[in-house]
C-alpha cells in the first residue's frame, strides 16, 4: 500500500498486561482476575495503519484504552516517540504529565451514538478538545478549525449548530473523526470505527480515514473484527486471542497465508461475497467456545480449540517466533496443520 511510511517507530507496546480484579464475598475482597491483556508486545511505525483483530473479548479495546490511559496497565511499557525523537514511557507519567500526549494520541470509538455528548452541538463537540489542549488558540481560530474539519470529513459548516441526534450513524462517525483530528494528533486509535455502519456507509468512512491519513500523515491503530476491512486498510495486522498476540505480519501475508492455527480458523470462517468460491474454500470449523478470560487455559490459551494441540501446549506459553520477513507466529507446531 502506498502509505508514506518510514521505519521510525512511533509507539511500542512492551509486554503489556491489564488485569481487572473481580471483587466478591462479604469483605469485598479480590476473588479473581480477568486477564484482559496478558503480555502483549507490538510496535507501530510512523505513517502506517496497523490492524488489530480478534474475536470479542480478546482484549483489543483494552489495549486501545491503555494507550490513551483510559485504563491503567497492570504491567508493561507503552513507549511513545516525541516529535524531537525522544522516547517517553507513557505508563510512567502521572495525569498532568500525560496531558500533552492526549493531544498527540486520539481515539475514535465504535458507537457513534454514545460517544458524543447529546447536549452539545456538533461544533462544540469538535471544539472541546481544542479548548483543553490548545489554550493559545483564539475563539475565532478554534471556530475556523472546526469549519475546516467539518468540510474535511464531508459535513458542512452550517451543521455545526446542530445536535448529534439530528445525524445518522455514518454522519456521527464523521463527527467523531473530526473531533479526534482537531488537536493534530500523530496517532489515532480507531476502535471498530465502521462496525456499526451499513455497508454503503462503511466504504465512505474507510475512504475518508485513508484520505485524512494521507493528508495529515497520521499513524492509525485500526481495531476491527471484519477481516476484509482490516486487510484493505492496514499495512500490517496483529491477530489476538484471549489477551495474547498469536500472529503479526504484513496484511497480505496474514490474509492470504495465515500460519497460526487460530488465524487460519478465523480467516477460513470469514464468509466471502462470492458464491463461486464457496466450494473451493476449505472451512475450518472450530469446536467449542472461547474460554472465559477468568479461567484462561494454561500454556497456549488456544489449545482447548486447536486441532493440532499436544500435551506440551498445556505446559508452555509459546513464544512469538520470527519465521522470516518480520512475520511472527506464536505456535511452534504451525507447520503441522494441513487443511
Amino acid at each position, binding site marked *: 500500500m502506498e502509505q508514506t511510511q518510514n521505519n521510525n517507530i512511533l509507539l511500542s507496546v512492551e509486554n503489556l498486561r491489564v488485569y481487572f480484579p473481580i471483587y466478591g464475598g462479604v469483605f469485598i475482597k479480590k476473588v479473581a482476575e480477568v486477564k484482559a491483556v496478558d503480555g502483549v508486545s507490538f510496535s507501530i511505525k510512523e505513517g502506517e495503519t496497523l490492524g488489530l483483530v480478534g474475536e470479542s473479548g480478546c482484549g483489543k479495546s483494552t489495549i486501545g484504552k491503555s494507550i490513551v490511559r483510559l485504563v491503567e496497565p497492570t504491567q508493561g511499557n507503552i513507549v511513545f516517540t516525541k516529535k524531537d525523537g525522544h522516547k517517553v514511557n507513557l505508563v510512567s507519567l502521572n495525569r498532568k504529565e500525560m496531558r500533552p500526549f492526549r493531544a498527540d494520541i486520539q481515539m475514535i470509538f465504535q458507537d457513534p451514538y454514545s460517544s458524543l455528548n447529546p447536549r452539545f452541538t456538533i461544533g462544540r463537540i469538535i471544539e472541546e478538545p481544542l479548548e483543553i489542549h490548545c489554550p493559545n488558540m483564539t475563539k475565532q481560530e478554534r471556530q475556523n478549525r472546526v469549519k475546516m474539519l467539518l468540510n474535511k470529513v464531508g459535513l458542512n459548516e452550517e451543521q455545526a449548530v446542530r445536535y448529534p441526534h439530528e445525524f445518522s450513524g455514518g454522519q456521527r462517525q464523521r463527527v467523531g473523526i473530526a473531533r479526534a483530528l482537531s488537536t493534530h494528533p500523530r496517532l489515532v486509535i480507531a476502535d471498530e470505527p465502521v462496525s456499526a455502519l451499513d455497508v454503503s456507509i462503511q466504504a465512505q468512512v474507510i475512504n475518508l480515514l485513508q484520505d485524512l491519513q494521507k493528508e495529515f500523515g497520521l499513524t492509525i491503530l485500526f481495531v476491527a473484527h471484519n477481516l476484509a476491512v482490516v*486487510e484493505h486498510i492496514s499495512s500490517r495486522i496483529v491477530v489476538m486471542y484471549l489477551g495474547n498476540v498469536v500472529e503479526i505480519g504484513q496484511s497480505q501475508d496474514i490474509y492470504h497465508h495465515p500460519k497460526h492455527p487460530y488465524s487460519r480458523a478465523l480467516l477460513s470462517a470469514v*464468509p466471502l*461475497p462470492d458464491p*463461486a*468460491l464457496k466450494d473451493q474454500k476449505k472451512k475450518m470449523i*472450530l469446536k467449542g467456545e472461547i474460554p472465559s478470560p477468568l479461567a484462561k487455559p494454561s500454556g497456549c490459551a488456544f489449545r482447548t480449540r486447536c486441532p493440532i494441540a499436544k500435551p506440551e501446549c498445556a505446559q508452555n506459553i509459546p513464544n512469538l517466533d520470527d519465521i522470516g520477513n518480520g512475520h511472527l507466529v506464536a505456535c511452534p507446531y504451525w507447520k503441522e496443520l494441513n487443511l
Partner: protein
Amino acid sequence: MENNTKKLLEIHSLRTYFCVEDQIAKAVDGVDFDIYEGETLGLVGESGSGKSVTGLSILRLIPNPPGFIKEGNILFHGKNLLDLSYTEMRKIRGKEISMIFQEPMTSLNPVFSIGYQLMEVFRFHQNMEKEEAFERSVEMLELVGIPDPRRRMNDYPHQYSGGMRQRVMIAMALSCKPSLLIADEPTTALDVTIQAQVLDLMVNIKKEKVNAAILLITHDLGVVAETCQRVVVMYGGKIQEIAPVHELFHDPRHPYTMGLLKSLPRPDRIKQDRLPTIPGMVPEIFHFPKGCKFCNRCDRKMEKCETIEPELLEISPGRKVRCHLFEGQKHGTDAK
C-alpha cells in the same frame, strides 16, 4: 442445486405500515416473492429497508399499534395466513413456520431454565408427556452441539454464552421440524468462528428435512453468498432485485445491488486503493424520493426516475429488477 419448483410460501403485494406521529411509515410497500420448497432464500438490504418487517409480517408478529398489515396475501400451503384466526396462527407459529432473531436473549425467558423452555415447545405443539419432551429436548441440545446437554438442561439463559443461546434458539425453532424457518440476522451478534458454527449447523439440519426452506434475513452479503440459492434485495420497503445467487453476485443488474457489491473490500481480488462508494445515505422513511426509491443516490439516474417508480420486471427466467434501465427487456410472457 435444488431444482424444486414447488412453492411453499407466496407473498402477494404485502404492505405493512406503521403509524408514527400522525404519519404513515410505509415500512413494506408492495412486496411480492415466493419461497420454494427446499431452498435457502436470502433477504438482503441495509438497515431500515423493511427486511425484519417482512419476516414478522409472515408470522403476523407486527406490533399493533403502531403497525398493521395494510393489504396483501401470504399463502402457505394454499391457505392465506392473513385470514387465519389468532388460535389457528398460534398453531402454525413454532410448528410449521418458526423464527429466530438476532438477539437470542430477548426471545428466551430469563426466569425459566433452558430445558423447561425447550420442553414447552414439544408439550404445546406435540402434546408430549413430560418424560418424552425431556428426552427430545436433550436430543435437540445435542444436535445443536451443546456439550453435556443433559446437565445443561437445568441452566438458565444467562449461563449460556451468546453462541450457545443462538444454538438453543435454533434447537427450539427446529424442534417441531418446521417447513419454513425465518432467520432474522441469526449470526450478526456472533463472532466469525461462532457464526461459521451456527451457519454450518443450520445448513446441516436443513439437509435432514429436504423440503424445508429457510428465509435468511441479513445485511451480510458474504453470509448470503455462502448459504443461499436465491436472493431478494430490498431498499426503501420495496424489492429492487431478485436473482439466483450466482447471477446476483456475478452479474448484478440493479444499480443499488451493483453499488453494494462494489463497495465491499475484496482482499481476494486485485488491490484497490479506494473503495467505490454509493453516495449519500439511506433517507429516513418519510423522505424517500417519489419515483425510484434509489434515484437520489443512483449514478445512472434518468429524468423519469425522479417521478415514476419503475415496476419489478422479470428480465429473464427467475430474474427480476425494478429499474427503468430495463424497460423493454421484459422477458416473454410471465414464464411461471
